[in-house]
């Protein structure tokens, strides 16, 4: 039977700067990005708002973000709710909005990823982020998400005889790309010397192996093709594949902790739906929450053999041959990691590339982009395949 369900298009995008935005509150950030996306869509009015957020209920003392943001963004009476999947919340909100449009139940849906990470101390963020682990079996033992990633990195280095210096290439690549992203948190190139001098935060990660937490909000507006206003002035982007997959929550329950299984399955499903293989995409916005996440994302996507992902960034020629451009606007590492908003930033950045609006960060060829948000060490993975729509509206 032919699939008659409507295709899903991104008609508008919006984002705030990423960083320590001391003068902007959670609602300021959300409203700015929502309004920008609505304006970019030619004024489409969302019926439903899907909010991606991880910490607001504790870090911002604010839950019920659907009602809050609908009111403050002037969407009176709209449907509004929050998707929470730890660091992958933004990707999860996008997935929910996608299913709403694809099902035909909602005509126009707005995805807003928003996070205000700097209203509490770093140590408080650490204790809050622990809640995304298995509380009884992981958090109670004193593990944190970053500490857990560091343990995995140690194991990965041990098993694959990784040259420690080679890992510098991942943050260096991210920083080099963020130079051209006006919204990025760190727009300065990173030298090998600076990387090697940085203090260790949690063995083996140094300061530059862990993406900096930041404030920020990003929004995308989803709808059906026929509802897009005429004369939009920018190309449309089609959501060609969408998949959210979970893995066992506790790391010790996975048979192979050094492989992001949910990421791999989610990648396969989204690509299968889009009718491509991952390697056929033009770029991959991965979730480089830490250097480990960057490496295991490449391996889960099949863009690198198991245990070899770390070699890619070091060998540029090999990278170009075997893999895809990644973190084209700086990734989590240099654009900044606004937690629950990060997955929506990936969508906005991919749209900029596919629309040819990425400025100095523009890739020469950008027809198909893959974005993937991850929670913790891969307990939830959300992958979307975005495609350029040839006709301009």
């Amino acid at each position, binding site marked *: 039977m032919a699939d008659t369900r409507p295709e899903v298009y991104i008609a508008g995008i919006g984002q705030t700067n990423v960083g*320590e935005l*001391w*003068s902007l509150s959670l609602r300021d950030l959300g409203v700015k990005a929502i309004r920008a996306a609505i304006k970019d869509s030619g004024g489409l009015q969302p019926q439903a708002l899907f909010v991606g957020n991880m910490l607001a209920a504790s870090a911002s003392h604010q839950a019920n973000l659907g009602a809050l943001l609908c009111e403050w963004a002037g969407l009176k009476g709209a449907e509004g709710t929050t998707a929470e999947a730890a660091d992958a919340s933004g990707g999860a909100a996008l997935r929910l909005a996608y299913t709403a449009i694809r099902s035909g139940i909602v005509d126009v849906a707005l995805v807003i990823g928003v996070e205000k990470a*700097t209203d509490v*101390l*770093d140590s408080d963020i650490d204790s809050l982020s622990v809640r995304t682990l298995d509380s009884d079996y992981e958090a109670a033992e004193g593990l944190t998400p970053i500490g857990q990633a560091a343990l995995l990195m140690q194991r990965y280095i041990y098993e694959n005889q990784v040259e420690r210096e080679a890992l510098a290439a991942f943050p260096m690549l991210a920083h080099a790309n963020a130079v051209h992203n006006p919204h990025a948190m760190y727009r300065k190139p990173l030298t090998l010397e600076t990387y090697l*001098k940085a*203090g*260790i935060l949690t063995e083996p990660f140094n300061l530059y192996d862990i993406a900096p937490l930041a404030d920020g909000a990003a929004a995308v507006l989803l709808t059906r093709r026929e509802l897009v206003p005429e004369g939009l002035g920018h190309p449309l982007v089609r959501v060609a594949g969408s998949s959210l997959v979970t893995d066992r929550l506790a790391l010790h329950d996975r048979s192979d902790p050094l492989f992001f299984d949910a990421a791999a399955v989610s990648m396969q499903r989204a690509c299968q739906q889009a009718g491509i293989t991952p390697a056929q995409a033009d770029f991959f916005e991965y979730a480089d929450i830490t250097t480990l996440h960057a490496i295991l994302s490449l391996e889960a996507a099949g863009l690198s053999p198991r245990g070899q992902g770390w070699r890619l960034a070091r060998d540029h020629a090999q990278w170009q041959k075997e893999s895809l451009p990644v973190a084209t606007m700086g990734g989590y590492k240099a654009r900044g990691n606004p937690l629950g908003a990060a997955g929506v930033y990936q969508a906005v950045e991919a749209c900029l590339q596919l629309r040819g609006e990425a400025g100095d960060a523009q890739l020469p060829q950008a027809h198909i982009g893959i974005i993937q948000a991850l929670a913790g060490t891969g307990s939830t993975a959300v992958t979307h395949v975005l495609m350029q729509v040839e006709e301009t509206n």
Partner: protein
Amino acid sequence: MMSEHEHQRDIENLLLRPERPVGIIGYGAYVPRYRLPAKEIARIWGAGDEGLPVIEKAVAGLDEDVITMSIEAARNALKRAGIDPRELRAVWVGSESHPYAVKPSGTVVAEAIGASPHIQAGDWEFACKAGTEAIVAGIGLVGSGMGKYALAIGMDTAQGKPGDALEYTASSGGAAYIIGPAEEALATIEATYSYVTDTPDFWRREHAVYPEHGQRFTGEPAYFQHVTSAARTMMEATGLKAADFTYAVFHQPNTKFPQRVAKELGFTPEQIKTGLLTPVIGNTYSGSSLIGLSAILDEAKPGDLILMTSYGSGAGSDAFVIRVQEPIRERQGKALTTQEYIARRTEIDYATYVRFRGEITVK
């Protein structure tokens, strides 16, 4: 639209300038002799030696507190001023580590230095700018003609929570200033300007032993925003450029902040070198910019122009334009210099430090 002339007039109106010109007629520093190297603190807490905010910090001894230290600094200021302490009309102590929560430090200092009972006395609190706030009050008292001399002190035995980032820098020391008529001054105060907002970057609640702080929030929206606003407004209103100053001194919570703020405002490392003491004595909080100024006055020459900008969390900055006058030459040598105090150095280890600071529970 406002004309350039109107704008200049409005901004000049922001400056505080008394009817009667005033200046500093005496000053004196005090730094306790004990030094705790930052590396020693790092050793205890398992931190690396890289990127420590200072080299070492000054620590008050067992028998020292803000009152005893203020007395010594005030005596040095009196020696340089050459006045009878009974001529003082105010004794004001700015600190965030007054020995008593209720009961003034000012009265103890006043009696100890031989001031008369016919004075204003009291304590000031505005995090690290309590001392410069006391000086501004002194300018008001003397500049209005209500009193001939006012003694204003910025002094601290600052508290840093063991293991906290502030433990590396929170130190002891400060300086005392006697404000008097400009014609007697070793340096005249041309103008002051203050910039304050409600910015909760650092605080200590009643009954709390250690202060808390907002980590990186203490930088951009707090220290940098207030120091640059105060200094820029001061320079614009007085028509002075960075290059016009011989010296500049800023509140110095660590080594980097004052260096960066100086650069942003157009000052050279040479201009701030003399007053930048935090690397070797730590952050003396209420004393921080004031002891930097005393080090500058120790070597300044008549005609030199100095910009001082304090910073107090909570938050605010006081900017001062100070012009050194002829009497400086014969007064510099009348008391120990700031560098002489810094040179009296006895290194201590962390165990001695916690004993001196009363961190060991003995009863």
